[in-house]
């Protein structure tokens, strides 16, 4: 597709083939396609011209990007003191927020602690209530007065041995010596 064009090469002063041109990486090494002689306007020249047009776009883009980065660099350089101050200030602000948050959580813990104490006290009161309700005298009174239960007599005692009724023992319980 690409062939060596001696005239082109000689006019441009380059000692490389068109393929070399295509693979050239440094755009600054390439000639401007408009500077190429008319003798290069052939089929191959047309292709070469298309290539050079492409290279030209890339070159202009490169220039543009260089100028942008240079501009940014300059802007950055001029903003550096301001940015430094902003960073320091935001650092301080962050610390302040952290301290405030610590305080806020501290108060929250304090409130939760009070609430926990209330629950602990409530639990204590419940334990006392349970103890009062389960005291033997109370249970006995309730059993006798409300449930109409009577105290167990020895004749009602059934002895168990290994999970079974121990008849001998139960019988012994039912008989009194005196």
């Amino acid at each position, binding site marked *: 597709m690409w062939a060596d064009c001696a005239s082109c090469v000689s006019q441009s002063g380059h000692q490389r083939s068109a393929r070399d041109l295509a693979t050239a990486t440094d755009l600054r090494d390439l000639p401007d396609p408009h500077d190429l002689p008319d003798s290069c306007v052939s089929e191959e020249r047309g292709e070469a011209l298309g290539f050079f047009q492409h290279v030209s776009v890339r070159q202009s883009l490169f220039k543009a990007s260089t100028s942008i980065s240079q501009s940014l660099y300059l802007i950055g350089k001029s903003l550096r003191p301001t940015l430094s101050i902003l960073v320091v200030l935001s650092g301080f602000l962050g610390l302040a927020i952290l301290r405030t948050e610590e305080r806020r959580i501290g108060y929250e813990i*304090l409130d939760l602690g009070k609430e926990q104490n209330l629950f602990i006290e409530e639990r204590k009161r419940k334990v006392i209530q349970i103890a009062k309700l389960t005291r033997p005298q109370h249970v006995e009174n309730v059993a006798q007065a409300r449930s109409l239960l009577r105290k167990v007599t020895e004749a009602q005692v059934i002895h168990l041995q290994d999970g079974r009724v121990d008849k001998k023992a139960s019988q012994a319980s*039912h008989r009194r010596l005196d």
Partner: protein
Amino acid sequence: MRSRIILLFSGLAIFWSVAILRAGFLQLTPNDKLQSLASRQYKTTVALQARRGAILDRYGKDLALSETTFSLFADPSVIQKKRVLARKLSKELNISFDTILDRVSDSEKRFVWIQRQMSLEQRNRIQDLGLKGLGFIEEAKRVYPNESLLGNVIGFVGREGQGLEGLELSQNDQLTKNRRTLSVRRDARGRPLVVADQLFTEIDEGADLQLTIDMDLQHLLENEIRGAVHDFVADQAFGIVLEAKTSAILAVAMSPGMDPNHPHKTAAEHRRNRIVTDVFEPGSTMKTFAIAAALRENQVTPNKKYNTENGKFQIGRRIIREAEVKHQWPELTVSEILALSSNIGTSKIALEVGAEKLRRTFLDFGFGAKSGVDMPGEARGVVHNLPWNPHLLANISFGQGISVNFLQLANAYAAIANGGVLHQPFVVLAHKETDRVEIARPKPIRRVLTTEQASQMRMMLVGVTGAGGTGGNARVPGFLVGGKTGTAQKPNPLGKGYLPNAYISSFVGFIPAENPEYVILIAVDHPKERSYYGSSVAAPIFSRVASYAVRRQGLSPMLISMQGEGSVK
């Protein structure tokens, strides 16, 4: 004009320089007074209330607990409308208007109590009134949910939470911890700022005390003891249940008792734990130890016979008689002397043993010395110093002229029951703290009898509850019971001799006799109606308590007994 400006600026410069130098001086040079002033502005003290530990029975049931209450105080100097405040508070607190007005009337005062130990609900209601010049202080209040159950043993605390009587007094150091204070930074409104590792909810608690007491057994014993005072119109009555093998106290009852929630409603003499603080003449229950002394010295065997002089035995100018005039036995074996409670037989054995050896045996069994029980106020009792004349020796052998406390007596029987080793009785089973539990171990004091001698003593004591013995009413169907009755005359507290018709009826025994689990003592002081003999007053109570104890323990009866006959194994 310019010179004036220069002068003004110079003046200002000098003023500020001096101020800055002074500030620097104050800041950099140490000054305790200024530092304390500064720290007072940004520091506050948080008091962490230490709660008194609970008292529990052996199964963890609550016997004493602490709850938080709120005490109301007033600052009369800031109260503007004193009459309005008094009227509103009197409605809320059920205190008379005049009383409250009187308390807040002196505007010079900065602090007066209005009401102590109120509930949370009461506090909230008073806070809702929005009265100025009032404040609350949190205080712990001791609550005894079982009311008078074990009241004399547990004791009670004062208003400031300090133990005043019973275990609350003797275990005060374990039950309480000092109030802990934390110094922390505070904000402008005085609220403490929470700092890492400082949690205000971690309330220190004293150790919980777990007792050896079985609350259900205690309840039954107290019912029986109260019933005895009522039925026999007695002055007072006592009961103890010991674990035979370790001398752990399972139940202690006395009537009249005390409700530790309202100790001031009980007479002072009934507030103390009279089981250990009071002594009495034990009477015939002491005969056991006179015979044990003879066994120790190998001077008797259970079947050795003694001439019991047909009920009248003269020592010097004095005559020893049996308890009943009708008791005119010519001779009795040692077993029979114990079973029939012969004063003459016991006196003769004691005279053979001699005062020194008898006294030594009594001391070895723990009489005349504190048992070391972890209850306060224990009395030693009295075992007279030697020499003893023969009449005193005879009297002491059957329990007169000697005084013991009830626990000493029960513990001495426990030594016989467990095979001859005297243990230190104890009621505190464990101290429970959040991070450790300290469990009390049984403490053997000394061996007082060989295993063989203890076994012989048990066998003879079983004879007391056997056919013809004085302790027949102490029997428990299906179980062998050993023990001894006692009917001791009460000494005259105002002079020599004994009070007429005043007795302490008692029974001490163990069950099951072949392998004793429980030692039970029942004593009724001055029963005035129905009967006064230990065999008919105390022994039936023993039977009921022992029967419940073995059933509760799940022990199977080992005897099949027939009506009116002996026991067949």
